[in-house]
Each structure stands twice: as C-alpha cells, then as structure tokens.
C-alpha cells in the first residue's frame, strides 16, 4: 500500500501539477499566516526578553519602583541582605535622537566598576593604555557605548557626536566605544546604549534617583525567599521581581494585542483547512473509480483511508515546507508596523530582530499537517465507507447535492443557538469566552453554505448561456463547490468584521478627539512618547509659552506610570487646571472637554480640584471600579487612596488611565515639571502661523509643537498603523479563499470535460465556455460575499460589543464604513473572478469530439 501510495502520489504530481501547486500553496498560506503572526507575537515578547537579558542577564532579581524611579539610597540595604552576592544600580532613560523621530536610544547608566558584564569593545584601548575607555567613560562628557548594529545602521563611529534630547533639554552624547550585546544575547535591541551611571543620572535622570537595582544571589539561595525578604526590607514603593515575573508583566501588557493577532491568523488556518478539504475532496472524486477498483481487488477500508490520508499528509508536508519560509517573509514584511505599534501604543520594546523560534516552526508544521489531515478526514471516511460497486459506477451528479442542506442548516442553527445560550449564560464570564463564541459562529457559517447555494442557485432560471447557468452549475456541483464558497464566506466574514470594527473604532476615536482635543497648540518633547515622566518641559520654557502673543491659557499635563495596589499599571495624568475663567474661550472649559460616561462634568471638575480622581473606561471595566469607589495606588510611601469622581471614555491606553490635579500628583507621588503643555489662543488667532512662529523661536529645543489639526492627524495615523497588520492577514485569507476557487474550478474543468465537450459540440464557442467558468467563479464569490456579509456583521458585533470591552475595556460605537465595505466586496468578486481565469482557460480547451460513454 505504501508503494502504491508513492506511485499514486507521483502520478498525481505528474498529472496535476497545477492543482497540486495550488493546493500546496493554499496550505502554505495557512501555515504562513500562523507562522508570521506567531513569529511577530513571539518577537514582541522576545524583544522584551532580549532587552531584559542584555541589560539584566546576570541578575536573579531586579528591584524597580511602583513609580518610575527609586531612591539610590536603598542600594546598601539590598547589598546587606544575606543572600545577595552582587547588586548594582541602573539608571535607565529613553532619549530621542534629534531629527530622527523614529529613533531613540535606550540608555542604560551602569556603574562601570560593578561586576556587571557588559560586552564593551574598547576601541580606544592601546597597548599603552588598555583601559582608556574606562577613564573616558568617567570623565569625557556624554561618553556612551552603542551597539555595533546601531553603529553600522547609522554610520556612527567612535568619536562621533549624537545629538539627543530628554524632555526639553538637548544634549550631546559622544560615541566612546561599542557594546556588543548580541555576542551574549542575540535578541538584544540595537538601540541599547550604555554609559557610566554618574553621567547618565546627570544628563537624563534626577539626583538621588535610579530606575533599577539588579541583584545576583549567592549560589543555592532561595530566590523567592530573598525576594520576599528584600521586598519587606525595602517597603511598598518598590517591587522585587525575578526576570520571569518581569517577562510575565510584559506578556500581560501585550496579551490583548497578541490574542487579536492570533485569532486573525487562526482564521487563515480555518480557511486553509477548507481549501485542503476542497482539494482532497476533488482528488478523491476524480479517483473514486481507482479506489473502487482497489477496494474490489481486496483493499480494506482502512487501507483506502490510509491511502487518502497519506496523500493528504504529503500535501501537508509540502505546504509546511513552503509555508514556513513564506510566513517568515510575511513576518519580516510586517515587522516595521508591528514594531511601531508596540513602541507607540504599548511603550515597550520594538522588535528590531526576528528569530524563528522552534516552537513556532513546530506550530506551523502542526497546523499544516493537521489541517491537511483534518481536511482529508471527512472525504476519506466518506469514501472508505462506500461499497466498491458504487465507486465503480458512473458518478451521478446529483448525488447528495443539496440533500443534506436542510440538515446542515439545522446543525448550524443548533450551533448558533447553543453557542449563544452558552455565551450569554456562562461564556461571557470567561476572558476567552468571546473568542470561543466567535469561533462557534464561524463554524456554523460553512454549514449554511448548502442551504444558501440551494436557495439562491435554485432560483436561477437559466434562459441563456449566462450567469444563471453558472449558478445552476454551482448548485449541481454543490459538494465540490461548497467548500470553496464556505472558505470565501469565512474570509469575507473576517474581512468585513475587521473592517466594520476598525471603521467603527476610528469613527469613535474621531468623535472622542473632537471632545477632548480642544486646545489650539500642543507642545511635548521628542522623547516624551517613550520616556514619559522624565521627559519634562523646562519651567522657563513654560513661561515663554504662557506669555506668547495670542496665548490666553496654558494647560500643563504630566503623565506618570504608577502601579495600583493590585499591581496593575496605571498611567496617572496630572492636570494643572486653569483657575481663572476664560471668557470667549469656551473650549478651554475643562468640564466641556470631559468625555464622561459616568459622573457629571462640572461636579467632576470640582472634585478633581479637591483631590479626587477621574478614571478611564478601560481601568473602570478591568478593575471593576465606578464613581464613588476608591482607586488605590501604590505611592512612594505606601497606599494612596483616591475617591473616583467620574469615569471617562478613554482610548489612550488599554491599561489604566487616571487623571488627578497636578498638585495631587506632585504631593503624593512624585514632583517634577510637566511633560506636555496645551495652549489656548485668543479666538481668531491663526493657529498654524502661531505654531510656525513657535517652531522658529524654539528651533534649538527638542520640542514637538503641533496644532490641533496636526495632532489629530497624527493620532489617527498611529491608529491606522496599529491595524495595518490586519490588512496583510485579510489579504492572505482572501488569497487562500481565491486559491480554493481556483482549485475547485480547475477540478471542475477536468471533471466536467464531458459536459464541456457536449456544449462545444452543440456549438458553444471556447469563449462561451470560458465565460461560463468565469461566471461560476464570480458566482462563488457572490455567494461567499452574501454569506460573509452576515458573518461579518455578526463578527463585528462580537468584536465591538464583547471582545473589545473584555480585552481592551473600551466602548466603540458601531458605524458602517460603507465605502470600504463596498470596495472590499468588489475586490472579493474581482478576486474570485480572477481566480477562475486559469481554470476557465483550461475549460475552454475542452474538445467537442471527446464525448465518451461515461460522460454526463
């Protein structure tokens, strides 16, 4: 049987190269989308790991603060613990490279005399002075060591000056050496830079404050016990964590992002399985007589089934072999946007180097193989249970066509009802509930295909050699064409679902921006986005801005990452509220700018002044907090409890956001100048001209000065970038579905050679036959579109109403992005038609003289 399998396969290869190619490509695309997404997903974690390992690879524990900084005076306490073998302080800063909006340096200030092993390559070393760099690191202002990768990328050599900024301060670093982190940690970020702690603290930090203490424990020490002891000794303002705990924090931060991508890639797999199903089914239909013969010659059912599954497995293997490199390429293609999303939305490491982890390879292989086998299982079982005689007899086309349609539709209904019941009683409590529900619904969708095809195509009354005949032909070959239609329907569901979600989200965001972004000019620094709290604006600069011609009010804002008592990260925003009323500038009224979903605006503003807090919707949902509750934050000296005066819509972070008066932030958490300023101008002032004037006057400052309009545009650009990767996934799924159409029709062209020959004999031209097939492809597209539209709306509802609320915690108002959907519908039809071109061109070659006894 094995040798038969081998021969059969070779034959298949010889005779059906195109079919085989398309099927393999389909499997490959399914595998590729999983590999691509998982590679990126892993990449996002590995990038964080790489960074942690490069900087703290030796450490068993790290001490960080509930606020971004901790006092350096806690170091002796750490060093005095009985299990500590070494401990050293780190000053961390993320600084912007001037004139390079996309480039920042992750500066690590370390004690060059501590036993921390950073792989510096001392270019300045000579025989006479082998530690020249060490001396320079201490005394040469701005001495920094950069990675060889960054050096190569930017052309920065030892001795070159890098202009950077932190907040409104412009500073100069001098490359003094290279630090080759990748020698020890292949995934180390290229933008790591190290310098002596004293210089780093002076340039980017604050006196007496550091970001981290890394600890090496003595051999045999109990890390958990040591962590607990240190935690107790150091107090509530710090966290003592193992690298694994820090990794989990990062992993949690990205959970929703990663899950979304995974879910999307699974749809590609789902579609891919349908493709395999189509192809295997086709190959079986085609070879049923061969199998009938084998059976009548004594092959058992198991043997036949094994044969079929063996062939499917071979397809799977080929698909995997192609799919994994393909996925790798796709991942690399999307690296930039995903990385940009990570850095701009999640304020975590961007990915600048991808690896293909063995786990992802294994996953891709499993998906390809199991998908192929899963796709073959049903037809193989179907085939093996038939009796040999029936297999040998000429195929009656109406066989089973539409017969099960009603039953399948019932099953779909049962699935939908059961799934809904489950979800609305139990499932919605589970975090993954929404996804499972969506999966169930997507599973129900293909079951509706036979009914839909029967209903729609049954209506077709061909009165000519046209589309109606194509529809009727589809109905006739329901068993063969149904899978392709189902695959299309799922793809379209996904496309439409995502499109509606993104469109709704964007519309919601625009509305929200309308409410909240009301000032005329916004000022922040180049490094603010990533550095946050430490990117401060010089008070003198604020004074300049305040007195700028046309400015009626300046609003200060500061953003500080703190931790809630339960360990949840919260972005705490301090607002300096204007005290004087501003007649004629109604948009400056804070109450009018609060997009509150709970609470009364004027009361909320008053409460804010009095020391209350406003929280964002995601925080409210995730921490189950509401107006009247208390937000408990970990302050530097212990718990800070703030009464909640309102809950506002918030789309700035899927974690927690909260707003307090600036005085509260300064007094109870950490006093520092603001990070951002917003200017309200006298009504009638030319905003853009003011922005230009400010830019000119402050050209030497590393500031980002934006008008209301520009800021809005940039916010939306970031939004669009976040969803860019979904477009690739949509395209891949569509491509797979299109391959399904191609494969199906290609098989049809072969299967229906007799019919086509007859039509040709009856006077149909080649062009007419071509058109007939094109029509069938388009019809499949149209049917998929029809079913997918329903699925898409359902999916969108699920995404908007359930999944986004659960995972991201924000309210999205449903909107109908009609133009985009219309365009996508046209694309789907066009792609389906295009997918039919090759099969149609094969069909048109049918020879009218080749009618045989068995045809039709």
């Amino acid at each position, binding site marked *: 049987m094995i040798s038969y399998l081998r021969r059969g396969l070779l034959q298949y290869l010889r005779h059906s190269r195109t079919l085989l190619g398309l099927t393999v490509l389909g499997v490959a695309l399914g595998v590729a989308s999983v590999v691509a997404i998982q590679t990126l997903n892993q990449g996002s974690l590995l990038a964080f790991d790489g960074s942690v390992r490069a900087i703290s690879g030796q450490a068993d524990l790290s001490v960080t603060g509930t606020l971004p900084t901790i006092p350096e005076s806690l170091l002796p306490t750490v060093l005095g613990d009985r299990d500590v073998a070494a401990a050293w302080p780190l000053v961390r800063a993320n600084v912007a490279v001037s004139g390079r909006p996309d480039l920042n340096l992750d500066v690590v200030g370390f004690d060059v005399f501590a036993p921390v092993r950073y792989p510096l390559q001392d270019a300045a070393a000579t025989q006479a002075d082998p530690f020249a760099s060490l001396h320079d690191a201490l005394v040469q202002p701005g001495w920094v060591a950069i990675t060889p990768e960054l050096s190569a990328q930017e052309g920065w050599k030892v001795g070159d000056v890098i202009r950077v900024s932190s907040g409104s301060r412009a500073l100069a670093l001098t490359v003094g050496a290279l630090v080759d982190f990748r020698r020890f940690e292949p995934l180390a970020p290229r933008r790591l830079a190290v310098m002596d702690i004293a210089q780093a603290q002076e340039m980017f930090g604050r006196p007496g404050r550091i970001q981290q203490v890394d600890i090496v424990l003595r051999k045999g020490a109990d890390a958990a016990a040591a962590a607990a002891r240190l935690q107790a000794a150091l107090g509530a303002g710090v966290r003592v964590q193992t690298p694994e705990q820090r990794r989990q924090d990062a992993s949690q931060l990205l959970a929703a992002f990663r899950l979304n991508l995974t879910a999307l890639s699974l749809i590609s797999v789902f579609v891919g399985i349908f493709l395999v199903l189509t192809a295997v089914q086709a190959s079986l239909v085609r070879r049923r007589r061969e199998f009938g013969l084998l059976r009548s010659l004594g092959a058992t059912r198991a043997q036949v089934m094994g044969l079929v599954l063996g062939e499917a497995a071979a397809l799977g293997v080929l698909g995997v072999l192609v799919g994994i490199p393909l996925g790798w390429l796709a991942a690399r293609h999307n690296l930039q946007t995903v990385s940009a999303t990570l850095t701009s939305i999640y304020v975590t490491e961007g990915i600048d180097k991808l690896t293909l982890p063995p786990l992802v390879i294994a996953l891709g292989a499993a998906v390809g193989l199991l998908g192929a086998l899963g796709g073959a299982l049903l037809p193989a079982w179907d085939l093996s249970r038939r009796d040999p005689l029936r297999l040998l007899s000429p195929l009656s086309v109406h066989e089973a066509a539409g017969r099960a349609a009603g039953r399948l539709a019932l099953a779909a209904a049962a699935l939908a009802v059961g799934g809904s019941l489950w979800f609305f009683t139990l499932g919605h409590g589970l975090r993954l509930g929404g996804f499972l529900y969506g999966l169930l619904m997507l599973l129900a969708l293909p079951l509706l295909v036979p009914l839909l095809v029967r209903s729609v195509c049954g209506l077709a009354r*061909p009165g000519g050699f046209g589309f109606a005949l194509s529809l009727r032909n589809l109905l006739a070959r329901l068993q063969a064409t149904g899978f392709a239609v189902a695959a299309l329907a799922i793809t379209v569901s996904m496309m439409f679902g995502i499109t509606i979600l993104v469109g709704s989200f964007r519309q919601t965001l625009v509305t929200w921006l309308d409410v909240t972004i009301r000032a005329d000019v916004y000022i922040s620094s180049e490094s603010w986005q990533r550095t946050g709290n430490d990117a401060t604006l010089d008070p003198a600069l604020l004074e300049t801005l305040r007195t700028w011609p046309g400015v009626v009010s300046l609003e200060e804002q500061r953003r500080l990452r703190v931790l809630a008592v339960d360990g949840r990260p919260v972005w705490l925003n301090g607002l300096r509220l204007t005290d004087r009323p501003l007649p004629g500038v109604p948009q400056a009224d804070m109450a009018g700018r609060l997009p509150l979903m709970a609470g009364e605006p004027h009361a909320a503003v008053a409460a804010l002044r009095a020391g209350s807090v406003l929280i964002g919707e995601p925080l409210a949902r995730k921490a189950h907090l509401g107006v009247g509750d208390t937000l408990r934050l970990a302050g530097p000296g212990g718990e800070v409890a703030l009464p909640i005066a309102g809950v506002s819509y918030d789309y700035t972070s899927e974690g927690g956001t909260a707003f307090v008066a600036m005085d509260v932030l300064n007094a109870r958490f950490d006093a520092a100048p603001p990070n951002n300023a917003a200017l309200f101008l006298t009504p009638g002032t030319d905003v853009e001209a003011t922005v230009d004037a400010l830019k000119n006057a402050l050209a030497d400052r590393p500031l980002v000065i934006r008008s209301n309009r520009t800021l809005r545009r940039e916010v939306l650009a970031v939004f669009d970038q976040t969803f860019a990767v979904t477009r690739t996934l949509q395209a891949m799924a569509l491509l797979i579905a299109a391959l399904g159409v191609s494969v199906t029709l290609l098989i049809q062209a072969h299967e229906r050679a007799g019919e086509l020959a007859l039509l040709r004999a009856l006077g149909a031209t080649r062009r007419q036959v071509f058109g007939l097939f094109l029509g069938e492809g388009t019809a499949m597209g149209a049917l998929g579109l029809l079913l997918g539209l329903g699925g898409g709306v359902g999916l969108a509802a699920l995404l908007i109403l359930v999944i986004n609320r659960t995972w991201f915690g924000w309210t999205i108002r449903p909107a109908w992005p009609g133009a985009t959907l219309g365009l996508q519908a046209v694309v789907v039809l066009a792609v389906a038609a295009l997918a039919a071109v090759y099969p149609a061109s094969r069909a048109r070659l049918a020879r*009218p003289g080749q009618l045989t006894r068995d045809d039709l």
Partner: protein
Amino acid sequence: MTDHILQLDAVTMTWDAGEGGGRTVLDGVDLALARGEAVALVGRSGSGKSTLLHVAAGIAVPTGGRVRLAGHDLTASSEEARTRLRREHVGLVFQFFHLLPHLTLRENVAVPGWIAGDDRTRTRRRADELLARVGLGDRAGDAVGKLSGGEMQRVALCRALLRGPALVLADEPTGSLDDRTGREVMDLLLEMTRAEGGALLYVTHSPELAARADRTWRLVDGRLLPGAAA
C-alpha cells in the same frame, strides 16, 4: 452546390500514430448530401463512421480534402467559425444521449438556443413544442434523472432539432436502446427531421434501420463504398 447541405471532396483523415506512420481513418472520401435527404452510414467498428460525422460537424478537421457545410468551406475555417457553422446548421444526436443532468428536460432542449443567444421566450416555446411532439410535454419541467433511455434520447432529439438545423448528425442514436424503443426513436428522428426540412446522416449497425434511409453509405477501412439502397 447550394442544394447540397454537406459535401466532402477527397477527405482524408490520418491519425498521427507516432513512429511507423499514421493510421488512415478516412481515405479519399467523396460524398454529397442533399438538403432534406436522409442517409444511413454503416460499417464495422473502426471503419471511420464517427470520424466522418466529426468531420461533417466541423468538430474534427480532415488532414486532406475539403468539407463544405451549407456552402461554407469548413476546412478553410477557423475553430471559431466552424463552431458557429455547427451551431447554425447542425444538430447532433449521440448514442449516449449526453443530457445535462442538473437541468430540466426543457432546459436541456433549450441549451443550443442559449448558446446561440436566441430569444429566450421563443426558445422556451420551441422546446416545449418539440417535447410535446415527442410525448414529453407534460414533463418539460422535470429533471432528466428519472427518464428512461428512450425518453432521454427523445429529449436529445428535441435538442438537436431546436434551432431547425439543416443537417442532423446522429451517431448510433439507438445504440443504447432496446429494439422496440430504438425503432420508435428512429421513427421520430426521421419523421421530425423531415418535418423540419433537415437532412439526416445517421450511423447505425442495424440493417433494418439503415433501410429506412433514402440511401446508405458503407464505410470500409476508411473508403466510402456505394452501399445497397436496401
């Protein structure tokens, strides 16, 4: 000329059979079929009967000689032109009926009209009319699956005659039917073709059925012998 719907001059068909030269299926066949004439074509298996019909229908192009269909030189026509000529002038009946199983009787009959882009209503009416003439008028909307062989061939007959072709080519139209049914179908074929004014060229193994034609041609090893007009 114009009174000949089909005319073959020295038609030779050699299948390319690789080394050792080709096999000559038709060898210098000359024939002329007058409009309205019914001719039976007889001969042993492999004598070239089906090839002759294919050549006549423009489905196959002879390797030598000339074929004229309704005054048009098929041998000098493109594939597209031959298809159109076939569509306009030829009706085909096959031994195995070759109905489209997913279409109704009426639709099967109507297919040539669809292909030609004829008026839908007229095509439909014509199909119904033909089906009524073969006794299947009340089943025009049924699927073809449940028909008997004879009924199927009657449907096929209607299909061949739908557009009133000047030439009907039938390849063993009774070959898969029992004798009685075969006779009935043959009767219908002859009768209706005549009624429509078309010429008929049919292949048969049955001397009895051959005898019903105006003339009989016999093919022997690719050569056309004048047969007994029994």
